[in-house]
């Protein structure tokens, strides 16, 4: 490409000054004679130089709304209405002036020529690739008429379904749920694909999912990163781990894969997959056998310890060694080291609970932290996540149903964050398990006719791609609100361009750290993109024009005003601020609290429950017993963890990421590669009972023998989709607190061959 300029200097060097030229322009009558078009005649030309470019930046406060531990506080620099660059907010000690490799690409994301720019309709049939532009009015008219037709045909709107998750976790984006609340009783794909088994486990043990401040880790004496890989996926936490390490702390990574974090640890332990629960129980047994348990903490804070100990007594450590592959002396060193250090902490990654026995694993790890008295300790804790700072008003979703709405009877509400007010009607929305999207669509009665997708790439994140295609073919209309053309938009009838966080107001909290950030609108919406709330308002206007009273969503929304409505006295008290406007000076942190330091748990007994009646009520073991994992149904285990170049299916399509990570790979252990006569760079076919996938191989002993690894990612120029092979088999837990179990996606099995 050439770097040429159309600078006006060359023009004005010919003798006429800019000022004189403008004087002449006014006098010439040219401007008054413009025929009109997309560019308008400037009615207010004066002889001041009209455009010289701003000399300074205007700064704005933003927050990364993606589903990520970091939820970075961002400072944005805008000049002449254009976002120039972004940086981590220095006011947050967590973000500490930095962003991650993905966040640094934000300017390129906003101004990518690949963005979806206009509402469009696929006219050659779903998947045909033949699209035409439509106006927002036509888009809303088409959708509104379909919704009203469903209501007329079925007598209710259960045929209209919403699937939305974490593509944008900004609080105002719960307005999408609000939009669906406002049209009547509908169908919701709810629950959570992320962490439900772990949420249930922590709720059974402690009555809540609540975690210590990650910034405390700098003072931890022993840190176990169990299946978590912050070097790739929670980069801002790593500095605290490094600081602890510098001060002499042991940093142990337990992971079957040699991860980026494993390379930075003082020790890496590589257990076999799926038996981590047994490993935790074995470690606990060693600690108790050595009489190193914290007897006072256990006595003061827990119930069921004796039953737990009796269960441990029955465990044979040789069985643990065999099942986990971790040598006894390694287990002893780890167990005794952890027990003797205080404060000590375990950070359990989300991948560990994406097994058929995932909830039981998290319970076993919680118990290990508990017996050492590290729960309720500064710099201790069994770390998983929290929603402690999410006490917003959720005004955007609090729309009443239109009068006379008819809905579902006897439904079970789902979700890690509420779906909106229940109301006093005998009806409810119909809730389907978000982790079984394809199956639920195919089995739905009454049938789903319209599916609205927001903040989500269904084909990137939901399971069993081939079943999804089959399911999407049964739908009458698919509406996808997106920033980029994903595989989900490929199967849409209507795509609606949505704004990035820089083009709208919002407020963001984290499920990991304790900072709160305002997200100011820094630039105008690009092209014809609209915020999710503005789309809801447009839909409401159209529905009410077609049938008065059919939608209760306001027909005008100002995202700034709606952001203010999310704040309440509780939020102000928690963060020690008097007004949301203080956030314009930078992010603020919640008042420091060590979870459970007061010994008060939220369980039925108000104690830590090694033995949980609630677990029994839900059909699980009362104790954190070992539960065997899913039986292999093919030769090789396939895992699909997160890549550091993408956030689920976001970011990988941005050019900078593509440059670093242009192709998807399957990672193969050298021994397995030898068996299959495969070398790095070869294309291999992976196949199992639900699908097949062709992909290049990379041979590495970072993955253990018998295991293949493919990062879950969406590539811009590739059909690659690991969910071609991942089915929707459930994990054990999740239904207790989120309404539906999670997915055992790391219990996927495949075979493979060289192509």
């Amino acid at each position, binding site marked *: 490409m050439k770097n040429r300029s159309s600078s*006006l200097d060359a023009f004005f060097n010919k003798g006429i000054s800019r000022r004189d030229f403008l004087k002449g322009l006014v006098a010439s009558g040219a401007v008054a004679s413009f025929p009109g078009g997309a560019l308008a005649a400037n009615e207010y030309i004066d002889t001041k130089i009209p455009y010289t470019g701003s000399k300074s930046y205007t700064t704005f406060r933003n927050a990364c709304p993606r589903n990520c531990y970091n939820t970075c506080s961002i400072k944005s620099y805008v000049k002449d209405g254009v976002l120039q660059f972004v940086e981590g907010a220095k006011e947050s000690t967590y973000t500490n002036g930095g962003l991650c490799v993905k966040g640094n690409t934000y300017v390129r994301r906003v101004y990518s020529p690949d*963005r979806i720019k206009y509402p469009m309709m696929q*006219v050659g049939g779903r998947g045909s690739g033949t699209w035409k532009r439509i106006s927002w009015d036509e888009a809303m008219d088409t959708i509104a008429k379909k919704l009203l037709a469903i209501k007329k045909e079925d007598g209710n709107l259960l045929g209209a379904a919403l699937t939305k998750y974490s593509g944008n976790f900004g609080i105002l984006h719960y307005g999408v749920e609000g939009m669906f609340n406002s049209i009547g009783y509908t169908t919701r794909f709810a629950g959570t694909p992320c962490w439900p088994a772990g949420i249930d486990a922590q709720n059974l043990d402690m009555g809540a999912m609540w975690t210590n401040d990650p910034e405390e880790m700098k003072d931890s004496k022993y840190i176990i990163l169990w299946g978590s890989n912050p070097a790739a996926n929670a980069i801002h936490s790593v500095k605290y781990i490094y600081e602890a390490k510098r001060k002499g702390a042991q940093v142990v990574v337990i992971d079957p894969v040699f991860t980026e974090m494993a390379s930075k640890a003082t020790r890496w332990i590589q257990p076999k997959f799926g038996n981590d629960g047994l490993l935790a129980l074995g470690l606990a047994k060693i600690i108790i056998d050595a009489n190193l348990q914290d007897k006072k903490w256990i006595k003061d804070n827990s119930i069921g310890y004796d039953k737990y100990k009796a269960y441990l007594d029955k465990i044979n450590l040789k069985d643990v060694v065999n099942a986990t592959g971790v040598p006894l002396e390694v287990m002893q060193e780890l167990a005794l080291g952890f027990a003797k250090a205080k404060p000590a902490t375990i950070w359990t990654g989300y991948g560990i609970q994406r097994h058929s026995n995932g909830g039981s694993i998290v319970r076993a790890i919680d118990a290990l932290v508990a017996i050492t008295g590290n729960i309720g300790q500064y710099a201790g804790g069994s770390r998983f996540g929290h929603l402690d700072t999410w006490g917003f008003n959720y005004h955007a979703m609090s729309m009443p149903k239109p009068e006379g709405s008819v809905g579902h009877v006897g439904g079970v509400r789902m979700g890690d964050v509420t779906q909106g007010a229940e109301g006093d009607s005998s009806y409810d929305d119909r809730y389907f398990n978000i982790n079984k999207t394809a199956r639920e669509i195919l089995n739905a009665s009454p049938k789903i006719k319209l599916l609205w997708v927001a903040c989500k790439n269904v084909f990137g994140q939901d399971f069993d791609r081939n079943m999804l295609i089959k399911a999407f073919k049964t739908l009458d209309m698919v509406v996808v609100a997106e920033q980029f053309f994903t595989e989900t938009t490929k199967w849409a009838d209507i795509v609606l361009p949505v704004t990035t966080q820089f083009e709208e107001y919002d407020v963001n909290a984290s499920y990991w750290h304790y900072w709160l950030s305002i997200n100011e609108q820094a630039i105008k919406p690009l092209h014809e993109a609209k915020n999710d709330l503005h789309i809801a308002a447009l839909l409401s206007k159209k529905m009410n024009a077609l049938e008065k009273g059919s939608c209760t969503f306001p027909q005008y929304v100002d995202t700034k005003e709606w952001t203010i409505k999310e704040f309440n006295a509780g939020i102000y008290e928690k963060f020690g601020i008097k007004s949301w406007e203080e956030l314009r000076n930078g992010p603020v942190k919640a008042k420091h609290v060590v979870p459970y330091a007061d010994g008060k748990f939220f369980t039925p007994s108000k104690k830590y429950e090694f033995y949980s009646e609630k677990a029994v009520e839900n059909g699980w073991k009362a104790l954190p017993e070992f539960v065997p994992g899913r039986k292999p149904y093919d030769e090789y285990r396939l895992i699909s963890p997160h890549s550091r170049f993408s956030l689920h299916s976001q970011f990988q399509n941005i050019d900078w990421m593509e440059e670093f990570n242009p192709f998807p790979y399957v990672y193969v252990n050298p021994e397995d590669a030898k068996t299959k006569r495969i070398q790095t760079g070869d294309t291999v076919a992976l196949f199992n009972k639900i699908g097949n996938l062709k992909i290049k191989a990379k041979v590495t002993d970072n993955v253990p023998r018998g295991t293949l690894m493919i990062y879950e990612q969406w590539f811009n120029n590739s059909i690659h989709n690991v969910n071609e092979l991942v089915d929707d088999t459930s994990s054990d837990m999740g239904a207790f607190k989120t309404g539906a179990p999670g997915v055992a996606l790391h219990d996927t099995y495949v075979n493979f061959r060289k192509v």
Partner: protein
Amino acid sequence: MLFDRLKIVQGLRDLFLANDSKAFHLACEALEVNTKNIDEFEGEFNRFFVGPKAPLAAPYASLYLESRGTIMSKTTESVRELYSFMGFVNPKEGSIPEDFLGLELDAYYQLLHVELVKKIDYLKSLRIFFLKNHILTWIPDFIESVKSSSKKPSNELLALMDLIDAFFNSELSIQGENDEK
């Protein structure tokens, strides 16, 4: 000839600014696009220039004049500055980049209209500057990116590219004379 110039650039403008099928079809009619299947041509046009899938040849000058690979760049600012001296404002400043082909065609059409129809040639020298120092610095590369795209363009699309090429080259050879017949 006089009105052909206006008709062509107006048609091209309307094509690149078309916000629905109706406007697209009208622009095609005005340009006398010879196609058997107008809907198919519209689909192809959108695949190359509009979306929703990443356009094969996004029509923004920035992408051809700078190595950044993003829109709203220095080129955009420089075209905005040009417009301001022409007496234009972009009502969608900040949303639609000034160096979007649709806007550049609009500016060119309006300038030519003032000259040819209203007989005011105050902005003629600036129009020629715009043509030589900006439009023709990127349009050939844009056309080339269509022709060499991984997806082979149809004859109709190639004809459209030839029309754009011929139009601006003709404008260059005319040098903005407004009285040729």
